[in-house]
């Protein structure tokens, strides 16, 4: 399979969000150091989970969340506390 890298920021720029000041998903990042193979990195369709090599820690960005819920099922260490955003906040699909 060819290595075609999607430009996720470009894709997400076509999605409407009403961003809450409060994160709806929280990650217990202290667990991530031990974690292999860190399935959240490849699983999230919005690439909200990335690994910061310099700081050697997980970066999580709730603002671009598509609210699919995939991450809540993939974490082997139960580090992801998943919930929907508060009512009225979050993704607003126009062509869902």
């Amino acid at each position, binding site marked *: *399979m*060819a*290595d*075609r*890298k*999607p430009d*996720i920021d*470009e*894709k*997400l720029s*076509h*999605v409407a969000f*009403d961003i809450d000041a409060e994160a709806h998903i929280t990650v217990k990042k202290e667990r991530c150091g031990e974690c292999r*193979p860190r*399935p959240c990195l*490849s*699983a999230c*369709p*919005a*690439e909200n989970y990335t690994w910061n090599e310099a700081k050697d820690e997980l970066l999580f960005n709730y603002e671009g969340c*598509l*609210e*699919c*819920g*995939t991450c*809540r*099922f*993939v974490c082997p260490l139960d580090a992801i506390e998943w919930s*929907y*955003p*508060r*009512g*009225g906040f*979050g*993704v*607003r*699909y*126009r*062509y*869902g």
Partner: protein
Amino acid sequence: MDKVDCVVVGAGPAGSACAIALARKGIKTVLVERGGNAGDKNVASFVLFGDVLGGIIPGYQKEAPLERAAGDNSFMCLREKDFIEFRARLGSYFENPSIFTAYRSRFDRWFSEKAEEAGAELVRGQLVTGLLKENGRVVGIRVGEDELLADVVVGADGIHSVVSREAGLYVDDTSRYMIGVKEVLELPPEVIEERFLLGPGEGCVRDGWGYPVSDVGGLFTIYTNMDAVSVCLFAPVDAVKEARVNLRERFEDLKAHPYLHALVRDSKLREYEAHILADGGRMKVDRLYDDGVLLCGEAGGFNSGMWIGVPSGMLSGLKAAEAVLRAKRTGRYDAAALSCYRDILFETGLPRMLYNAKRYSDFIVNSARKHMEGFTDNLFGLLEDSIMQEVAFQDPEPFPAIETAYAGLVADYVPAWLARPLRALVGVLGRLESWWTKRRIRRTV
């Protein structure tokens, strides 16, 4: 604290259908939706099979926000550079259409407004965070700091249903969960019609398997809207978890495939979306209710095999409403009173649908996901071999159809103990076939 007859959680197809049916019978119903508008949060490919809807809103074809009538269906199988397609067009479907493409964002909103028109109170932009219970019995919902009491709560809150979890009815079976990633790709209507071989305003749905998700038994759909094509790629959640399948990259592979490329090249991305669904067969119909609570739609596992769940979701919503009405007549809403839901469901085709969906889903989970890659390769190999042999005219031996079909489509799936006797039998049948065909050739030409 406020109290109503019934709270329906989630204004998707199931919840709105349920609220419409309840409100039409004069039941004081509140329909709570977390999206600022119903549909804001919802994603499907989306093909609407409209027969159930027609029973709720006669003449919906004229007023619902629909895109194209879909009377042109294809099934296909892809390999990296190849494809096999089976296309069926039923002219009568276009004359009196009941299958349409649409956008859930618009459709769900329209349908939820029908619930309001019927007399239900639609509360938008409110997330139900939990259930209120009294002696183990569900007596209402929590919405953040607020509470609302009800005789009965209907959970129509989809795949991540908080109602089913809090009521202890949730069945966790991620092996039947699929994640769908979708792009809505804008193209002028005439270009869509030209590329998809459609008349003006006509639409098609194309479903396929194989590349770029054959290794995990994934699927994809390509549906035409009026001025955009919706492409959706599905893979099992377990594959994303265990095989670390990256659907973002697989999506790019799909769009670069010659089949897709020819259809969507030079299009403009309109929206990028993702949502989970479950194959049917996860839940049991006698575990869809408890004291003061009922489940319908995706929250109750009412999905057919594959990804079709809107009509079955709507019908289960109507049946949940019927159960509430029956319980109301007895004045009791405990599990015993609500167990009529099960009997009401058995008067419909839904249990049969669930049975088939479970069998289909078992087959996918246990067998198809493991064998899809090999099967796809064999199918293409068979096609190549048979074409090449029959255009070169070098081989006086007739084409060994039995041997080839066995080797290509059956051999890999035969249990070990049966392999040798079956192989021997196929050998004998193959020789018979050859002898018989040669005899026919000599007598015919």
